[in-house]
């Protein structure tokens, strides 16, 4: 099937994407004001001929998707997967049935879209988005890559290089997450692709009724976090920063694309409800990255909209306690005490306070909190070790 045929505007899609009309006028210039040709969504894709390069890529991704479904890193939360599907369908319109969205337990900000319609959302991204509109901005961006078939363009660009043969061979040996990291480097979209995906993603957001301003916010939040470390190089700290347009340009472009949009749906409460079950796990995984400066910036931002969240206060306190630089002990103490004042305090906060007071040279207070921890969690997996800490 000719690519032009696939990208050809289809009247069948007019109804599905009828909401785009007003949006295109806003979105059809780039940051420098250069007009883009009008964009219309393609018709649903047919499975390409297996003998074609695109067909081979689909087959490869089908195999990866089979592995993804069985992977221990897949977050098997039916409510979450349903929610991701709902957001995907709201943005993808007529392509809804062709896109399958999975949540992956990986504590970094990333998402990936395969040409066969498999979309992966990493848990680190779910932790970093604050509402449905922000998550929708990322999903819309990935859908745009799919609709524009950017991965096929990229395949044709790199296949002449020996590296791609090695890349293809790797899928049989290394696991899914490792493969995806490799894929992010070998198959990174060009910056022009990213700009186009940004532009179309904002159109999809607006058409779906989301607040399009959320797209720029996602990017600026991530940049703030990554630059929390002195001498941090965003291009090395994040796959996204390595392959995407410069952040300042991107933020400005997204802000401009969203300018003039009617205020749309933020979906803050629905998002919070759906994420509640996996949030503790995501915070635990975040701390285990051992990049405490970034974690503190991230969690501080999240606390602004959830000031009485025991988990957020606890894990920010843990970040301070584990980093233990000047002022961290005091900051950790404040967070732990605040966490215990919330409506649903955590037993593990007492354990953290036990260790913190021990470090600060207050054995009696330390023992008291260890004792409270054991009282609240007598069957804890570390209970026997903690008992040794009692006076």
């Amino acid at each position, binding site marked *: 099937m000719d690519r032009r045929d696939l990208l050809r505007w289809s009247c069948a899609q007019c109804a599905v994407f009828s909401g785009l009309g007003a949006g295109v006028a806003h979105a059809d210039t780039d940051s420098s004001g250069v007009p883009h040709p009008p964009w219309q969504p393609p018709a649903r894709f047919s499975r390409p001929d297996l003998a074609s390069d695109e067909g081979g890529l689909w087959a490869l991704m089908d195999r990866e998707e089979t592995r993804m479904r069985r992977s*221990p890193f897949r977050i098997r939360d039916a409510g979450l997967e349903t929610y991701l599907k709902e957001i995907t369908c709201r943005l993808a319109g007529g392509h809804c049935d062709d896109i399958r969205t999975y949540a992956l337990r*990986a504590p970094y900000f990333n998402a990936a879209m395969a040409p066969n319609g498999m979309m992966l959302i990493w848990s680190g991204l779910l932790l970093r988005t604050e509402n449905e509109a922000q998550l929708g901005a990322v999903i819309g961006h990935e859908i745009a890559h799919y609709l524009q078939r950017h991965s096929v363009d990229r395949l044709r660009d790199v296949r002449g290089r020996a590296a791609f043969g090695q890349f293809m061979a790797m899928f049989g040996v290394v*696991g899914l997450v490792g493969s995806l990291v490799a894929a992010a480097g070998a198959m990174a979209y060009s910056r022009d692709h990213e700009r186009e995906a940004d532009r179309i993603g904002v159109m999809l957001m607006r058409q779906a009724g989301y607040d399009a301003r959320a797209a720029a916010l996602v990017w600026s939040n991530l940049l703030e976090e990554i630059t929390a470390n002195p001498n*941090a190089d965003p291009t090395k700290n994040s796959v996204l920063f390595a392959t995407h347009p410069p952040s300042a340009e991107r933020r400005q472009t997204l802000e401009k694309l969203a300018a003039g949009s009617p205020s749309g749906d933020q979906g803050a409460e629905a998002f919070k409800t759906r994420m509640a079950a996996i949030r503790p796990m995501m915070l635990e995984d975040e701390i285990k990255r051992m990049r405490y400066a970034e974690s503190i910036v991230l969690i501080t931002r999240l606390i602004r909209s959830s000031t009485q969240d025991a988990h957020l206060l606890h894990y920010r306190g843990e970040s301070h306690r584990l980093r233990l630089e000047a002022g961290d002990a005091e900051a950790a103490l404040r967070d732990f005490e605040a966490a215990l004042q919330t409506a649903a305090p955590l037993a593990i906060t007492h354990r953290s306070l036990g260790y913190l007071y021990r470090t600060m040279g207050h054995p009696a207070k330390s023992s008291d909190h260890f004792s409270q921890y054991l009282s609240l969690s007598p069957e804890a997996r*570390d209970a026997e*070790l903690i008992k040794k800490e009692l006076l």
Partner: protein
Amino acid sequence: MNRIETVISTLILASVLAGCAQVSQVPSGEVVVRSKMAVTIDQPWNQFERSPAGDNHPTWTVDGVTVDSLKFYVALADGELIAPTPNEPKGQRALTFKSAMTQQEVLGLFEGLYTRSGSTFELERVAPHNFMSRNGFKADWNGVRKTDNVRLKGVIWACVHNGELYAITYTAPSLAFFSKNHGAVEKIVASARVRNRD
């Protein structure tokens, strides 16, 4: 690819790696590890002169180091790293042993070693344990290795003696391989003792 196939693929990869790295055989009998630890073994093991993980701790294996890995941390002094800190990304906390660390903090070092790249670590149980005739701990854990999705089981034995860290860790896929050598490893750990250099 099912889990057994995954493990076999890993085994093949390990064999390839083994062909590239310097490996020597550890014969049965009493073995001195880094001059300050001695153990007794009743079956030969393969030893990597330098761990494929990039650190400098003696690493033993039967079936290949990415399959089963028995690692010795011998007399690490205050301020020593249990593993090198990757150059990138910036801001990652170094895994530095401190003499004043609690046992929980020592356990945290090893947990950080396994999780900092995205693998998972779920503690099954940690309890005080007489290790090398000192007050130490034993921690059983399980997790999933990020690079190949293999489910792992592991055990960490550790103690601090004269301000120095002594530890032995054993890690292997939970499917068949862990139990295959676990009994032999327990015997080795039970035989471990501090060796005073005369």
